[in-house]
């Protein structure tokens, strides 16, 4: 993890960065455990619980939560805050379907002031957008993640 505040221009230059991309198939066991964590019964017809739209796009794009922390030069795991998650589901997701996943950074900027319910200070706001397509190429879903990376004083 970074121990000094990165230059603001390095953060802004992240806009347009693309993750390698790849494929992701949700197995029954993964969907079962994931759904159980939500407190729900399994969904019918091999439907994948939509909460999968957090981690599936990240892993399918061949990155990771830790990788996204590192890309934004997070000072520590504790320095990350969630601004928002925005999930669109055009076509319901199913188990054992191989989805094609792409992901990129869509916004990145240095901010100053209080994050929501946080101490005032300097932070970087980075937005990632991931898209899932079915094997035939139809758009299925998207996930837009906006995180804040708190910075210590330079």
């Amino acid at each position, binding site marked *: 993890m970074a121990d000094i505040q990165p230059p603001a221009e390095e953060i802004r230059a992240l806009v347009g960065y693309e993750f390698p991309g790849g494929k992701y198939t949700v197995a029954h066991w*993964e969907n079962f*455990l*994931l759904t*159980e*964590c*939500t*407190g*729900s019964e399994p*969904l*019918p017809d091999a*439907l994948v*619980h*939509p*909460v999968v*739209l*957090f*981690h599936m796009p990240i*892993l399918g794009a061949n990155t*990771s*939560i*830790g990788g996204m922390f590192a890309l934004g030069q997070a000072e520590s*795991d*504790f320095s*990350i*805050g*969630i*601004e*928002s*998650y*925005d*999930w*669109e*589901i*055009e076509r*319901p997701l199913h188990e054992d379907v191989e989805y094609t996943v792409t992901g990129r950074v869509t916004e990145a900027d240095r901010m100053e002031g209080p994050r*929501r*319910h946080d101490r005032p200070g300097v932070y970087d706001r980075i937005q990632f957008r991931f898209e899932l397509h079915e094997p035939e190429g139809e758009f299925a879903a998207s996930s837009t993640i906006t995180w804040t990376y708190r910075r210590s004083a330079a």
Partner: protein
Amino acid sequence: MNVQVGDSIPEWVMESVRPERMRTMAAILRDPNPVHWDRKAVAALPFGLGERTINQGPLGLSYILNMLMDWAGPTSVRRITMRFPKVVLDDDYITARGTVTAIREENGERLADCDVWLAREGETPSLEGTAIVVLPES
């Protein structure tokens, strides 16, 4: 499905947010952040949260998804946008709630725009946002 603007969505309750579910979730997500599985790491933070692990944001969001799917069906959610003003902690009793703010037709479907939130009793929301839900015909 007879739905009117101003209707409340039947609430969905998580009676106790369980730390073992956070640990399973952390493994599935490959989430390295110890705030989800190490109570002492949370207690060491300068936020006064005590020795209670912090629920993953997507898990809190999933309670709202469960409310919407129980109400309108398992393929009904078209979009959900959430902000996270406060954390949810292990052992919290927390309730998902929502109201219908608009009903409209789009591409032959009847859509409900909803305000949705997740909150401990008597407190301001831990999660708040909006959702678009396809309403079933019958």
